[in-house]
């Protein structure tokens, strides 16, 4: 009973983190880049949003500026990678580290800034997951965000630019041979991804009622876990792009529900990061181990007729 009562919380949390996981999906799956910037961006969005709301801006404007801040972070990583030739993983780590200082500056050098509940026009809160009209329910509001985001991304990745980004993640050489500037597509992809992560961060800070400079620690692992869980459980059902994004969000919900179960069962919350890391490591290893130990030799196109 205690668990059922506690369920709406992790579902709402999962929806908000699902937005973040969609951002990770764009870099990790579509662009085929491991982008660690998100550990910083997952704090930046909240910092920007909370500080702006506190100084009187509307929630809409605050969310939008948070999105832009995330895009700026993605741009920095993208330039490190494309213009300066730094490997993507390292570029992300550099931006992430730099963002820690930036985030503290945004928050006036405070590690944690609370948003007084009820004083501002926030749209989600952990107090609104039950016993409120449905349109005020955080699960409903977050679900709307998720649906709109999936719709917009479904459209975007069907455009010329979106297709060029997908092609870049698929085969860079082919993309350049087709006249695609792969540096540009990587930049756009990284900006879009980090913008989305910052949006999630901004919602999450409202949900929790505070912005925290450490809010993004390990976020990439949670995002990857959501992508992997979604893919493992729902991957076989449909190859439709919108469905894939939806299954990433479902993956995030499952992650937070399981988290809740494990905590309710009495496990130390601080051990969850270790468990998440191990679970993600195992799933990342599966394709490699499969290839190594279970693959049949593949027939190539036949002998060269040289």
């Amino acid at each position: 009973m205690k668990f059922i009562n506690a369920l709406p919380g992790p579902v709402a949390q999962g929806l908000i983190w699902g937005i973040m996981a969609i951002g990770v999906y764009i870099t990790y799956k579509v662009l085929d880049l491991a982008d660690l910037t998100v550990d910083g961006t997952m704090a930046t969005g909240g910092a920007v949003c909370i500080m702006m709301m506190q100084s009187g801006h509307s929630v809409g404007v605050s969310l939008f500026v948070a999105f832009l801040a995330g895009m700026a972070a993605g741009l920095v990583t993208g330039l490190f990678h494309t213009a300066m030739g730094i490997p993507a993983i390292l570029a992300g780590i550099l931006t992430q580290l730099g963002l820690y200082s930036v985030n503290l500056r945004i928050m006036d050098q405070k590690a944690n800034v609370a948003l007084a509940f009820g004083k501002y026009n926030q749209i989600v809160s952990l107090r609104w997951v039950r016993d409120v009209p449905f349109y005020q329910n955080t699960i409903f509001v977050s679900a709307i965000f998720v649906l709109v985001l999936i719709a917009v991304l479904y459209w975007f990745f069907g455009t010329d630019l979106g297709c060029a980004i997908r092609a870049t993640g698929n085969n860079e050489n082919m993309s350049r041979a087709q006249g695609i500037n792969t540096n540009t597509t990587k930049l756009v992809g990284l900006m879009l991804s980090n913008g989305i992560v910052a949006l999630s961060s901004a919602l999450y800070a409202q949900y929790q009622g505070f912005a925290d400079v450490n809010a993004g620690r390990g976020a990439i692992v949670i995002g990857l876990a959501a992508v992997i869980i979604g893919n493992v459980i729902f991957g076989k059902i449909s190859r439709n792009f919108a469905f894939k994004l939806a299954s990433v969000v479902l993956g995030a919900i499952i992650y937070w529900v399981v988290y809740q179960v494990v905590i309710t069962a009495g496990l130390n919350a601080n051990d969850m990061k270790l468990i998440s890391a191990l679970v993600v490591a195992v799933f990342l290893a599966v394709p490699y181990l499969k290839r190594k130990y279970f693959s049949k030799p593949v027939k190539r196109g036949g002998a060269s007729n040289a």
Partner: protein
Amino acid sequence: MLKMEGVWKTFNAGTVNEKTALSGLSLELKEGDFVTVIGGNGAGKSTMLNAVAGVWPVDEGKIFIDNVDVTKLPEHKRAKYLGRVFQDPMTGTASGMQIEENLALAARRGDFRFLKKGITHKEREYYRERLAKLGLGLEDRMTTKVRLLSGGQRQALTLLMATLKKPSILLLDEHTAALDPKTAAKVLEATDRVVEENHLTTLMITHNMKDAIVHGNRLIMMYDGHIIYDVAGEEKKRLKVADLLEKFEQASGGEFANDRMMLA
């Protein structure tokens, strides 16, 4: 129309792996020339094509396409002039995307890509027709991921992609070498057809000397980073494999004896 003037390219300059792959290469193609390129391993054939495509900048020399100096243009900006098919069937397509999506990407080669639809209804119909002409049944599998195609199907698709938007120059780098002989013959046949129909200026590298003689209107032989033999028209038609082998022997002082060219 292509013109290369005194092109030099050295890889890994200043290291123990230093290798001069192009040494003062000059070549001029006339409109509609179909040139086959032969030469031993490491002669610089692929490097010549990569220099035209702009995969990396050359050290010296100039490259003109359609009388435009493209020497300084990066690869993606030269793409509008070029159709390319590679030796490895994996290289020319986006394997995780659908057949029709790959074609749509190729149809926009050289265009500015923004928020217009990535593929339209009308295009689909056109692609269906073009695929049907290949005679591989791909027109009924347009939403299949390219990953699932065989090497020969992929090369045929890549050839269609390379010529969907008429290129100023078609670059073929041993595009049948990874295929079994029957499939290779089919793809070569398709190549002849598409070059003829569209009157394409073509550079085709091959390791098969018979193919080099049979196809095209001109043949060049490369050795050590430049062209050592250039023959066209009637004289090319009369060539025998033995003549080419002899040319090789002369150029290399017999060192080709073990080259895979011999097996052709």
